[in-house]
């Protein structure tokens, strides 16, 4: 990008002292500062990015600013007037036990995902990262669940987990373990477990693929050198593979955490947060606050901000820690 353009005088940067002037020049001075060709180039570039910028401002930046504003109001989303209520929404959020219960459920889903989804993903990636028959087939199979929609996955699993004739209970029955059959999604003590296992089933392929990308970035020569020095397979994994993979593990952990905390589609389509609030998750609570029977956009916005700040904070701290203890992310 910064290498000098040869042979293209029409698009060369204006020479000499003009370059050293910082900042965007006033329009009437443009002519002095840039050659005609440079000005055409600049206008073309701005036209190229203009539509992207417009969408970005309307659908990303403005909504973001609006959420912050709304979180200090008591707007229901419908009436034409609303009041400024200061920090009331935030105070109410602090006392909302359903909200903190949903956060707890989110943390539960995140812990299960960080341990099992990541762990299995790493094992599978290490298993596949070698010269072997069927590598492409395995990769294709492992990444199949992640391309499915949450609604589809939930619909299928809701049926598999069905208490009376679902495949899982019926199979337990037929192999003589009928005593273990259970209304998995109907019992508050197992519902969240069931959802977390479905989400692990669907999600493993993603860390698998990212770990595989990370593993493929490790040069084979390093392994060969280690083997020449007499290192065992296990030593190589612990002393070479894992440390070199650390930046990727850091990023994948953050992504897994963010994904699990923001679980929504699976829950909506399997339990709608029930039984009771046993599987209520933060995004569902935000959704219901805004679009439920008693809509409160101000409160929902405040919950969004609280949740967003917590997620962002935890992500940044983990990235900082993984960066400090390992190398720079690739």
């Amino acid at each position, binding site marked *: 990008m910064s290498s000098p353009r040869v042979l293209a005088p029409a698009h060369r940067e204006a020479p000499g002292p003009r370059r050293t002037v910082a900042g965007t020049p006033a329009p009437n001075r443009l002519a002095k500062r840039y050659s005609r060709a440079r000005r055409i180039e600049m206008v073309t570039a701005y036209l190229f990015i203009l539509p992207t910028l417009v969408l*970005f401002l309307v659908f990303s930046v403005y909504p973001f600013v609006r959420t912050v504003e709304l979180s200090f109001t008591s707007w229901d989303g419908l009436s034409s007037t609303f009041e400024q209520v200061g920090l009331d929404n935030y105070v109410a959020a602090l006392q909302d036990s359903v909200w903190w219960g949903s956060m707890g459920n989110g943390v539960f889903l995140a812990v299960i995902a960080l341990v099992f989804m990541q762990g299995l993903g790493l094992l599978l990636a290490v298993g596949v990262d070698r010269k072997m028959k069927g590598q492409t087939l395995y990769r294709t199979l492992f990444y199949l669940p992640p391309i499915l929609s949450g609604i589809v996955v939930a619909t299928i699993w809701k049926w598999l987990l069905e208490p009376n004739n679902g495949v899982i209970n019926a199979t337990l029955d037929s192999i003589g373990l009928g005593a273990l059959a259970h209304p998995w999604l109907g019992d508050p003590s197992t519902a969240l477990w069931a959802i977390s296992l479905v989400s692990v089933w669907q999600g493993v392929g993603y860390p698998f693929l990212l770990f*595989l990308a*990370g593993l493929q970035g490790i040069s084979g020569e390093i*392994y060969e050198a280690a083997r020449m020095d007499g290192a065992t397979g296990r030593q190589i994994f612990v002393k070479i593979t894992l440390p070199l993979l650390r930046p990727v593990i850091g990023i994948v952990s953050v992504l897994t955490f963010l994904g699990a905390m923001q679980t929504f589609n699976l829950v909506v389509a399997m339990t709608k947060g029930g039984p009771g609030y046993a599987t209520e998750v933060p995004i569902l609570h935000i959704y219901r606050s805004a679009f439920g029977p008693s809509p409160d956009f101000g409160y929902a916005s405040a919950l969004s901000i609280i949740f*967003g700040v917590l997620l962002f904070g935890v992500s940044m701290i983990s990235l900082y820690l993984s960066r400090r203890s390992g190398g720079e992310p690739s």
Partner: protein
Amino acid sequence: MTVLLNRPDLLEDPPARRGRPRLKAPRVLLHVALAVWGLASVLPLVWMVSASLQTNAEIYGGVHLIPKSPQWSNFVQAWQQSSFSDYFVNSVIYTVAVVAGTVFLASLSAYAFARMRFPGKRALYGALLVFLFIPIPGAFIPLYLVLAKLHLLDTQLGYILPMINGSLPVAMFILRAFFEQLPKELEEAAFIDGASRVQVFTKIAFPLARPAVATVVILTVLGVWNEYVLASVVFSNQALLPLQVGLLAFQGSYFSQYGLMMAATTITTLPIVIVYLLFQKNIIRGVMAGAVKG
């Protein structure tokens, strides 16, 4: 949600796997372990297809994988009832529109960011990418308000535009990385021949970017086809619903008719599985290069 591994090299063919740690355990064990998870990954889908071809009585009568006599009528019924065919057509329309818009806008801006010089370039690109990293949970609330203000609620455009916006950053990231590694000589030769910037983009750079465009297309197709929450917020008119929202509505009306429901689920899933099997190379490379998850 996105992470940028910044490995555009992964869009190329992968290097041969040399010098990986050798296995002490017999290869068979490794294959067994991998095959178990491979099987676990497809089995639920196999059950879905199997149940979609069974009668309700058969499903309630006990577990068996092979339908006695395939009930294709489930598919006919699912397709014809409760406007499922409308949902399908809607999903196709939204997917095509969002993909076209994303490729058009992202390739233009990615090219400008990769190749052209203009004041404010770094700051603008940085601002666009920041929104990839900051989690904005509940973004559907302010989006709903913006759309209401623009009178776009319950319109196709009101769904398509924010979806394009959502797909843009990742698309731009992948395309920019690609444009940056294209050799400059080709473009420079065209400039000498008197071509304009626009001509160089449309005639040379964009056609060369075909592999990256393919990756962007596939990732966007997956993202739009599978999207649920924004659609559920934007649309209240049944006739405009895409498949995912329609499927959940279908689940509500036919909750005890599993054969029918699994047929509807199969119809929703099949296109995306076919796309995946045909273009998995692009998907996998795209995910690995500028890792994305819907």
